[in-house]
């Protein structure tokens, strides 16, 4: 069976599967990475913070439907095979991403804009829900039983690789065309590019063969007639679905999305670090940490999956708050003294008359460069009352577009690297772990659901719920972290008590 396959044949399978999955992740992530810009394009100009939250809601909607995609395409994959099912998901994903790039803005078509994006986002979520389980199952069913962790970990790298690719394309496009043109229309380019990438991947996938295990089942006439019923109506199988969700994927999902998404959102929106710097930090962190998916996946073949995943969760629970406190402290420029300042640019003063009055709003903006190499834009807002003559401060000084000193930049890279290292611990072995929980004939359906509830719902909602919690009155910028910490703690306890640390076996039972 799978052991007889040549090593290069397995890597061909991995390469073809991974490329498509990587592109699907790319498609899915460009939306999240551009949430702020898309929010400004799709919602009324005066919507303010609600635009971002609503965009995150649309972003979250893409995650929420993932479990439904898992059910629809998982069922299809167990009925007609893995190959054609995840070919279909790729077409749906690529098509909807391309169309998002063509949607007119709110100023052109009003609320039809966010509604259309929401529909396409739902299609993306459904497609992704079907894709991952198929790719992981497909690779696992080609791999020898005692090397599943190693071989499926290559599929695991695609999620981070897709994020890396999306950030890279965004940063490159923005720098080539300038910030203003990018915010105006250039943000569409990463979406439109997707169609080329998907075309290449479809060509490669069409040349792939069906999984040997599924082919064997089909030959023997043992293909499931009703995978949904067999997966969820059978207590012995359903209890494993619940265990996989609460004891593994739920915690894994929040660790993943905190390290890769919330971290970037926090650095950019809460710490107000410059657009490019916040993305470069993540790009470096991902580049350094990605090889560890394979290292931990391979290691799990030797020591079992359970404790590697749970250690990743525990480290997240213990270290998230100290790490994010450092992000806040190192970007706090409110205590800068004159001795720290190297130069201050000429102030740009904007005077806006207040409607119906002779008073005016005065905004003064200047770029401050520090001796450490850091810089930031300082904005002071005042109201000038004509009868008083003296301006009155409207709100505390604001600091934005912060560029970090070299030392702090690399410190942030190290902290992001650590968070993504935790991602590799929880995520590297998870595909092999899930594949080994369920029998071949209902594997696609059974493993896809806990994976996508854990990652799509619990994980995908991290930026949305954490931002929401942090916006409550009385909360601090770190309050949002209680959501991933709480979920990871619950999952850690359930995993530690209920999961067994099965050692992988040489062949399929």
């Amino acid at each position, binding site marked *: 069976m799978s052991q007889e396959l040549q090593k290069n044949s397995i890597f061909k399978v991995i390469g073809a599967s991974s490329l498509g999955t990587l592109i699907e992740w790319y498609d899915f992530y460009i939306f999240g990475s551009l949430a702020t810009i898309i929010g400004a394009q799709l919602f009324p100009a005066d*919507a303010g913070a609600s635009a971002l939250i609503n965009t995150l809601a649309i972003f979250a909607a893409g995650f929420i439907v993932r479990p439904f995609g898992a059910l629809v395409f998982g069922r299809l994959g167990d009925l007609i095979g893995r190959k054609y099912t995840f070919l279909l998901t790729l077409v749906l994903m690529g098509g909807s991403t391309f169309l998002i790039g063509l949607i007119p803005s709110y100023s052109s078509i009003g609320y039809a804009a966010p509604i259309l994006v929401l529909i396409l986002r739902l299609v993306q979520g459904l497609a992704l829900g079907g894709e991952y389980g198929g790719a992981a199952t497909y690779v696992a069913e080609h791999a020898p039983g005692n090397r599943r962790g190693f071989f499926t970990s290559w599929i695991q790298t695609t999620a981070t690789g897709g994020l890396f690719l999306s950030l890279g394309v965004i940063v490159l496009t923005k720098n080539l065309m300038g910030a203003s043109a990018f915010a105006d229309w250039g943000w569409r380019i990463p979406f439109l590019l997707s169609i080329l990438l998907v075309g290449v991947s479809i060509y490669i996938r069409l040349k792939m063969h069906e999984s040997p295990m599924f082919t064997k089942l089909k030959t023997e006439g043992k293909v499931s007639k009703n995978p949904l019923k067999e997966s969820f109506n059978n207590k012995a199988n359903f*209890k494993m679905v619940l265990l996989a969700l*609460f004891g593994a994927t739920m915690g894994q999902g929040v660790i993943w999305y905190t390290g890769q998404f919330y971290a970037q959102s926090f650095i950019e929106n809460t710490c107000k670090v410059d657009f490019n710097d916040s993305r470069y930090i993540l790009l470096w962190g991902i580049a350094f940490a990605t090889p560890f998916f394979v290292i931990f996946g391979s290691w799990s073949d030797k020591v079992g999956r359970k404790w590697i995943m749970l250690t990743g969760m525990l480290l997240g629970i213990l270290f998230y708050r100290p790490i994010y406190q450092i992000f806040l402290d190192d970007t706090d420029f409110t205590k800068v003294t004159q001795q720290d300042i190297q130069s201050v640019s000429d102030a740009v003063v904007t005077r806006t008359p207040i409607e119906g009055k002779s008073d005016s709003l005065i905004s003064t903006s200047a770029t401050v460069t520090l001796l450490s190499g850091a810089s930031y834009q300082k904005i002071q807002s005042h109201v000038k009352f004509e009868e008083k003559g003296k301006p009155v401060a409207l709100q505390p000084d604001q600091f934005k577009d912060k560029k970090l000193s070299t030392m702090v930049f690399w410190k942030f890279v190290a902290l992001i690297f650590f968070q993504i290292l935790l991602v590799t611990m929880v995520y590297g072995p998870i595909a092999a772990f899930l594949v080994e929980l369920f029998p071949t004939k209902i594997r696609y359906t059974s493993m896809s659901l806990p994976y996508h509830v854990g990652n799509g719902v619990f994980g995908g909602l991290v930026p949305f719920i954490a931002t929401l919690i942090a916006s*409550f009155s009385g909360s601090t910028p770190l309050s949002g972290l209680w959501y991933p910490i709480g979920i990871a703690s619950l999952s850690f306890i359930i995993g530690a*008590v209920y999961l067994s640390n099965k050692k992988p076996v040489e062949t399929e039972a």
Partner: protein
Amino acid sequence: MNGLKKGLGLLWMILGPASIIFMFLQAYEKVGLAAEGVQKTNTALQWGIILFIFIPISAGLVIFGYYALKGEYDQLPSGSEEPKG
């Protein structure tokens, strides 16, 4: 260990409905605090999404707890192809 699994099962059964009640109370409070108009609609929508998603998951936690209490997780299958049911 099996005793602990069963004992915690009861805790999960309680945690499921407790989390739903907590979320409802939070939703009620936050929607009530939001200003009339777009902000109230947005807040209601956000909490609607959260409740819609987490109520079935909380129900799943109760079922998980019930199975744990009944000793369903005392002995886990050793392989993925082990006969089920």
